[in-house]
């Protein structure tokens, strides 16, 4: 074992005080030691303690006391003492049996009840010894994958897992969409609930699913072994469903608050904010300088990626919801910002980034701005004719420009960007599409100068880009000026960067800026002006649609808060999470179906929304990453059944709450909180026991355990309590089975019924279906033995 310091506690208060004082110090508390020493020897956790505090020296914590009906057991009482106590055997045999079933005599002589109730799981992935290769960095350890999902899970949960922390996909999503949660609803066939989950984070999924770079997929845990879940395809189907049922999802608020908000800009940020604000019952006015709502969605993103009707339909839905659109209204021209503040309670500025930045090369003025090109194409399709086009830029806009140019009939389209193939900001699919359609991509080139003859463009001189980012990861390209290349072109479209147009901000209107963008408080989107919020590209510079959605939502939430309306708690299903056993084994993602290259046009959407079957298959591939291990303690199910209380140095917690609220019982304890004793009243008139199914009658942890307590009066079961261990991340009450039994006379038939009730809601994994049958058997045998 690696070295640690050891301190012996003289009392729990003593130990708690030390824990409280030394917050910067890694300290482990050791009761019996059999669990902790095992973990330390095998070095299964990255975090190794500097100090171990031993509690065994607290002699006064080693007792079993009886006063009236109350039994109190000191936390440092050894399991052998509990197992061999005649009093316990007589009054609470369930506990004596549970204690006796733990490990082996030489361990029970050391292990304590306090240690047992706080013990760590025995999952073999979690416990994999570091010395053979290396430890598994599983979800429970803060890592990203539960290896049991695809690995051998014969001893794991049959009732689902528990979330340990936000999954990587969820964390990666700028809107923090709870992707696994909506996938789970999809698997359950409940697209409606899935839609609700998405809408909590993002009200325009029919759009984001089409245009978002969906980096969530890059973080999907499946990438470690096969292919990411095609999250955006599932989202798209749900998005379409939402739009098809727009009246339901974009329903007017049930009550008006009488508050008002003006949202400047009808792009994704504005639309997101509008939805959440209107849903809360405020009067919402969206102001935009363009004719149609949608901002970039309408004017920049080509129709083959996002057909215009989606935005139109969405805007219509918004209108039905009661959102007012004030189009063709330019802030700073038609209405001043100050005026808005006067007329509305709150103002949200999301005016976007529409301006062309100056790159500063010779001849720049003869080149065209890519975004403008896209905007114009939308308005005057096919008016421009170009032969040989050079596009500058490596983002999605550049890809759109290049593909659009090609589809417009350009003979050749070349795209030059600073970044290497893997560094390109555009999503891989967009790059692939461009290449597929004949766009030549030149990676690692920056612009040097335009080659022109009067107004006639001949081409562009490019310079080799050595590196794009500096050591700190900041954008700071360096060039090899000796290495230059010429590309012939008659048209150059520059799609490298966009600027926010903040011309509406007049001198007297003082609002803090940051590098040409509106400065906002992260998390609330508050600007320096009271009551004024901002979001979207105007605050971030050109960014993804989903990032804009996030800022819109955050602003809406902050505004609501200022109006005294709390954002409803986001979707969280109580209980355990599940995944599809077979579906999760499927290594191949559903492919997006696309029009053949020859049939693609500027207007028609290139790809199709996947069908229901495919969508289900894909949702089944989501592993719903969490921890799927099971509780290891034999004592805890017995204590839940006994309705015991866990007395800590700070409070008294009911066993049910203590053991079932958190993934780990010890998470219930503060850092400086320790279990002092266990207390319970002897239930009178009850029969009770602890059944433990395991491979061997010694050493093994429970595969399934059943702690039971029941009362039979006049031939009928008048009360019953069944707690299952080893089947879920925490012990669970078999409440359905209890209610099936209460009021009934014990019989073979009832035994079967109770057994079936006990497994209700079971969600087995690949290798553990047998555990369901064991649960049945234990319950059946218990009822069959009732007298």
């Amino acid at each position, binding site marked *: *074992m*690696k*070295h640690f310091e050891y301190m012996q506690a003289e009392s729990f208060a003593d130990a708690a005080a030390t824990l409280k004082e030394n917050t910067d110090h890694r300290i482990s508390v050791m009761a019996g030691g059999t669990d902790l020493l095992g973990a330390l020897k*095998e*070095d299964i956790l990255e975090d190794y303690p500097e100090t171990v505090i031993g509690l065994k020296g607290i002699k006064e914590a080693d007792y079993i006391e009886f006063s009236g009906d109350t039994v109190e057991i000191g936390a440092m009482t050894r399991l052998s003492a509990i197992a061999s106590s005649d009093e316990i055997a007589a009054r609470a045999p369930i506990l004596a049996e549970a204690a006796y079933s733990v490990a*082996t005599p030489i361990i029970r002589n050391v292990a304590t009840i306090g240690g047992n109730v706080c013990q760590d799981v*025995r999952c*073999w*992935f979690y*416990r*994999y*010894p*570091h*010395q*053979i*290769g*290396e430890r*598994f960095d599983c979800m429970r350890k803060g890592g990203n994958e539960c*290896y049991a999902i*695809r*690995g*051998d899970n*014969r001893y794991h949960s049959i009732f689902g897992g528990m979330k340990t922390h936000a999954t990587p996909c969820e964390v990666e999503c700028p809107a923090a969409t709870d992707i696994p949660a909506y996938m789970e609803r999809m698997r359950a066939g409940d697209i409606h609930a899935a839609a609700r989950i998405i809408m909590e984070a993002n009200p325009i999924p029919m759009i984001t699913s089409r245009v978002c770079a969906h980096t969530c997929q890059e973080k999907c845990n499946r990438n470690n*072994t096969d292919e990411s879940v095609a999250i955006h395809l599932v989202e798209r189907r749900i998005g379409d469903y939402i739009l098809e049922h727009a009246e339901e999802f974009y329903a007017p608020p049930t009550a008006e608050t009488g508050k008002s908000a003006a949202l400047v800009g009808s792009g994704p940020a504005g639309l997101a904010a509008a939805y959440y604000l209107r849903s809360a019952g405020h009067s919402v006015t969206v102001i935009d300088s363009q004719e149609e709502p949608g901002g970039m969605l309408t004017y920049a993103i080509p129709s083959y990626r996002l057909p215009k009707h989606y935005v139109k339909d969405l805007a219509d839905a918004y209108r039905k919801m009661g959102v007012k659109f004030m189009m063709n209204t330019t802030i700073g021209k038609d209405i001043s910002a100050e005026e808005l503040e006067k007329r509305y309670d709150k103002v949200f500025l999301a005016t976007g980034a529409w301006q062309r930045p100056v790159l500063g090369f010779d001849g720049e003025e003869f080149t065209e701005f890519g975004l403008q090109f896209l905007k114009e194409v939308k308005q005057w399709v096919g008016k421009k004719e170009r032969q040989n086009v050079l596009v500058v830029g490596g983002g999605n806009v550049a890809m759109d420009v290049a593909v659009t140019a090609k589809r417009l009939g350009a003979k050749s389209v070349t795209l030059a960007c600073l970044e290497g193939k893997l560094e390109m900001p555009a999503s891989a699919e967009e790059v692939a599409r461009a290449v597929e359609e004949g766009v030549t991509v030149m990676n690692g080139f920056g612009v040097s100068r335009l080659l022109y003859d009067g107004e006639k463009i001949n081409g562009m001189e490019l310079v080799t880009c050595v590196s794009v980012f500096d050591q700190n990861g900041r954008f700071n390209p360096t060039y090899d000026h000796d290495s230059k290349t010429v590309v012939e072109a008659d048209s150059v479209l520059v799609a490298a960067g966009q600027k926010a147009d903040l011309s509406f901000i007049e001198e007297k209107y003082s609002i803090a800026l940051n590098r040409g963008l509106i400065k906002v408080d992260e998390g609330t989107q508050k600007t320096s002006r009271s009551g004024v919020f901002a979001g979207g590209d105007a605050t971030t510079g050109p960014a993804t649609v989903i990032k804009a959605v996030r800022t819109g939502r955050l602003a809406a939430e902050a505004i609501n808060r200022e109006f005294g309306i709390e954002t409803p708690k986001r979707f969280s299903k109580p209980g355990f999470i599940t995944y599809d056993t077979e579906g999760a084994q499927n290594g191949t993602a559903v492919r997006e179906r696309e029009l053949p290259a020859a049939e693609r046009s500027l207007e028609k959407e290139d790809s199709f929304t996947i069908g229901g079957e495919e969508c289900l298959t894909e949702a089944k591939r989501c592993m719903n990453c969490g921890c799927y291990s099971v509780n290891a303690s034999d004592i805890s199910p017995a204590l839940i059944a006994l309705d015991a209380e866990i007395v800590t140095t700070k409070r008294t917690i009911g066993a049910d709450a203590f053991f079932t609220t958190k993934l780990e019982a010890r998470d219930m304890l503060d850092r400086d909180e320790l279990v002092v004793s266990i207390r319970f009243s002897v239930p009178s008139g009850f029969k009770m026991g602890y059944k433990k*199914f395991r*491979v*061997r*009658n*010694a*050493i*093994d*942890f429970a*595969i399934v355990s059943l702690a039971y307590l029941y009362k039979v009066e006049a031939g009928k079961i008048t009360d019953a309590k069944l707690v299952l261990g080893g089947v879920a991340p925490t012990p669970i009450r078999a409440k359905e089975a209890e209610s099936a039994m209460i009021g009934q006379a014990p019989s073979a038939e009832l035994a079967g019924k109770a057994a079936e009730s006990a497994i209700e809601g079971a969600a087995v994994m690949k*290798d*553990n*279906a*047998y555990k*369901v*049958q*064991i649960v*049945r*058997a*234990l319950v*059946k*045998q218990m009822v069959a033995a009732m007298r």
Partner: protein
Amino acid sequence: MKYRDIRQPNYRHVGNYTPRKEAKEIVTGKALFLDDFSLPQMLYGKIKRSPYPHAKITSIDTDKALKLEGVRAVITHKNMPQAWGLGLPVHRLLMEAKVYHVGDVVALIAADTLEIATEAVSLIEVEYEELEPVFSAEEAFMEGAPQLYDRFPGNHVDNGIKYFQPDGPWWQIIKGDVEKGFSEADFIASDKIKFDKMPAPLAPETPCCISRHDGGDEYTVWASSQSAHIMKLMAEGRIPNSNVSVKTFNVGGSYGNKQSLMTTVLSSCMLALQTQRPVKIVLTKPEQLTSYEVRLGSTITAKIGMNKEGFVTAVEGDWLVDTGAIADSVQGQVGVGLGEAQIVLAKCKNWFMDSHIAVTNRQAAGIVRGYGGQELNSCLERLLCAVMKEGNFDPLDVFKKNYISPGDMFTWRDGRTWKSRSSLFFKESMQGAADLIGWSLKWKGWNKPFAVNGSKARGVGMGVIGNADISEDNTEAIVRIVPDLVGGKRASTCIIECDITESGMGTRSNACKIAAEVLNVPYEKVSITEPGTKFNPSNYGLCGSRGVITTGKAISNAAMEAKKKALDYASLYFKRSADQLDTKDFMVYVRDTPNLSVPMFKLGPKELSIVGYGKHMEMFDIPSCMAVFVEVEVDLDTGHIALCRICGGADIGQIIDIKALEMQIEGGIGSACVDTAIFEENILDRATGRLLSSSLIDYKWRPFNEFPAYDSYIMESQIDSFMFKALGIGEISGAAGASAVLMAVSNAIGADVKEYPATPSVVLKAMGKI
């Protein structure tokens, strides 16, 4: 000939219980095992192991480890002082730029303390490029399967090792006419059965050794090996031109599994060479479980034909053997396995049984008690059950009919055909054990329990296995009658020079017992030299169930020679012919006038010993036999199997030590045997290639409170193996247990169970409950 016609000799020592020479040391904790021993200035070695089943090492950085105070050497594939190989034939190096299984050697560390060495392991930074792994022989042979070694195209281990098969490779039983055999069959069954969980024999003492470089190409290795000789043989084959002296202590269990310890020994030798200090490596339990040798993986696809009389008429099949990431003794094991199949089905004339050995990305398989036979038997007997079931035969009858009898021919692993001259009474020993378990009452037919009580159902099953290894390996010994140098009543002692390591079977004590019997002296007055290869005559030591037979023959021959010399001296002394004389307690006396006697020390040259030399030469014509009957109780609700009773039957020729025999018979159920049918398995996680059964909690073994009753039926028919007529039993004593358990479970639940082990999940699936 009737069993009752056999003379039961009355020996002075042989057959009785004599406490082992080291019995008192063992019960007082004084018995020395390797890890109890240290050398001055010794360093501790540790192995950095691979996390991936198959990968390329793209970079390896040992700087941090080397900077750790107390670290004396870090060796990787890049800076190995010499390129030592592994495998037979050598097919890889100790360390390479590739790793072939989780736990493969990536780097070696030697440090002042174990703690420092362990810490240094974590400080070595390695980057890998993962490669696709294969985890079974079937996968390994598929077209397009990832390739492991250049030496083995298609992952196919070539059958070219002269060592096991001196006349050339032998890996198929081809005889008779299979088509004709099947046309004569009334019942035919075919199936594919796997025994592929590669369980671990799991000796309590982990593999360990201390190596010292003695200069030049000389090394001394202290090892926890049951056979110093085999280790020397293997090590010298891998360290070019070397001379390795191997010394051993008591060995804490081996079961055949701790013979060569090659990876561990080469690792410590390399560290010793580099540091010029002795280096001790003791594997931890997780290392032993996940990275040390286990049973072979076995998959057999076969067709068996049987006629109305219950004789097997034809066997056609293909045996796929998974030897894991290192192919070592596997060809010997496959040869033995094929040989054993013929012993059980000796009456079958028509065979076409092929075998293929694959290397895969699982941990290496090696030698384990049962030596290939158990792995094949566990599959083949399930197939035999299928055809017996077709014809509704009582398996006891079929086994009795088909088992080898004297005069039957078989091909053994040396590739030669032998004619059995073994016991006539194997059938009787099977019946004897059957009677003990109550077979005639409990056998109710196929898939029929004999008792059902609520959810508990009971069934019986049986299996038979045999082996012809008991006279394998040449052996020599010297017996010296050494005069006591001083004392009024000077006598003598007897010293046996023979290289025998004690790993639990009592062979050292039995050797003394045999010499004591031949010379007719007290057992206490006979001792044996300390084990070691350098100063002892050659002996393979305790491998296979032949230790007592091969060393016994060499020692009894040597003792006879010494005795003859003493008698020759005495015939001059008494002026009588030697055949009128005999020996007792280091005296020579005149048989018809016992008071005419002379102490041996007076007969030999002054101060010098009377020396005899004896040897044993290898042969394979005495098959053994062990029948195992089991009774199980299965909980039909949970699929839990309780092993209630085991009965074993054997003809062991002559008992050498009654209690040691009992231990050998009962011991057969350990070391990854009978419980490989119930709960014992190495659990491979295919998603990561790791073994999840990495601790004694997750690797299941049978605890003290769950031992079934064990009743044995023993016959002693005095087979002419050597002077004391014994027939080895240890190798096979439990080997048929696993297949017997599956038969019993199938009978208890009323459905065929074909998967090893029959975990609750397997049983419930077979019953259609899940």
